């Protein structure tokens, strides 16, 4: 999977070859979309960055995520969650089934607090095709490298 670098230099990540890539679409830092429709849904991988209103510790950040997803996704069902690593930092991985305009979708999301920011890598796919893309989502998440901001500027 080829590596892409965000124009800001803040992160790099490997993305599926032949998928369409766009940076900074509305509030989303990176959107990578499979041009081929699958069960009425285009598989996609997105990277988003959140600015927490107040400094958060990792435990609070992690424990809040299942509820956050449940609040924003239609008929969300949490299938799995585990603590792992992204960019060398503690991260939480969640697997959630939900619906998008009535179509069943599986989203796998990794989130980490790095440099005071909340980072998310989310892969979404029509649920019947999850097995087909699971390895690429996992590869993407584990390939992500975040340049941690330092007191002297961006590192």
């Amino acid at each position, binding site marked *: 999977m080829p590596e892409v670098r965000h124009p800001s230099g803040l992160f790099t990540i490997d993305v599926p070859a032949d998928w369409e890539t766009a940076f900074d679409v509305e509030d989303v830092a990176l959107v990578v979309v499979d041009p081929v429709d699958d069960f009425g849904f285009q598989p996609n991988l997105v990277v988003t960055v959140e600015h927490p209103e107040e400094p958060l510790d990792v435990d609070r950040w992690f424990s809040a995520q299942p509820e956050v997803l449940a609040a924003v996704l239609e008929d969300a069902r949490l299938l799995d969650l585990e603590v792992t690593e992204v960019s060398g930092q503690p991260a939480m991985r969640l697997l959630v089934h939900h619906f998008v305009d009535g179509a*069943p979708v599986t989203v796998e999301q990794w989130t980490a607090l790095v440099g005071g920011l909340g980072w998310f890598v989310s892969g979404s796919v*029509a649920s019947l095709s*999850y097995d087909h893309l699971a390895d690429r989502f996992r590869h993407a998440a584990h390939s992500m490298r975040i340049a941690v901001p330092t007191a002297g500027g961006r590192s």
Partner: protein
Amino acid sequence: MIVEYSPGRLVLPPDVFLALVSRVDPRRQVRLEDDAIDALERAGVLDGDAVADDIRPLLEAVTASVCDLMIDIDDRRIVGWVSPELAVVLLPTRERDGRADVVAAPTVNLPIFLTELTDLGPRSDDGRGVTIELDADLLPALLAGDPDEVAAGTLLGQPIDADAAHALSSLLRGAVRRWRVVAAWGDGADDQQAVEALDGATGAWLVEREGDRARLSTVTPTELYRGFTALLPTAEELATAFRAAR
């Protein structure tokens, strides 16, 4: 014989359902017995030769099946059929009266259907990367084993390593659900794929059978869910079957 039928609900003996399928597929020469015809007519499923409008798609889904499902959850056996558009399963009634609820769902919803059926969800991580191999016919004895004996490092009289002892004894201290989902694409053993698990609050174990042996490995719920999606038809397979049916 009691057949219950109301919009969205059909309860009847499985063999009667299969015989009913022959009403939309004459190639299936399964004859409905007279008492079954009487019960189906009384319930409103049959009106002479005509099948109720909302039941017909369920029967047609069986005849257009791309793959068949066989799901064992503890001592319950659930059978089903997967057509390009609709999946139909026969769920044994809670009363265990020999009848089944006929449940239908869009085929694309099968992953979440199987998830709910097996109650798959987050589990505590009480030992990952542990594998045990044993004779498959010893599985019931394993499940009936003494957790304290296992924790002390002995499984069915054989020594096991400390990680396996910890993970397995944790599983055995709680309720263990045993399930197996089989998708059959043909009649041969090679045409079947299965996902089998032992599932408890302290973690899930994947059971892989090869010959007389069984390999048990601790897995995440993600791996089991992925297994569901691996054994079900892909979009391409369903589209091909859909075109063929047309």
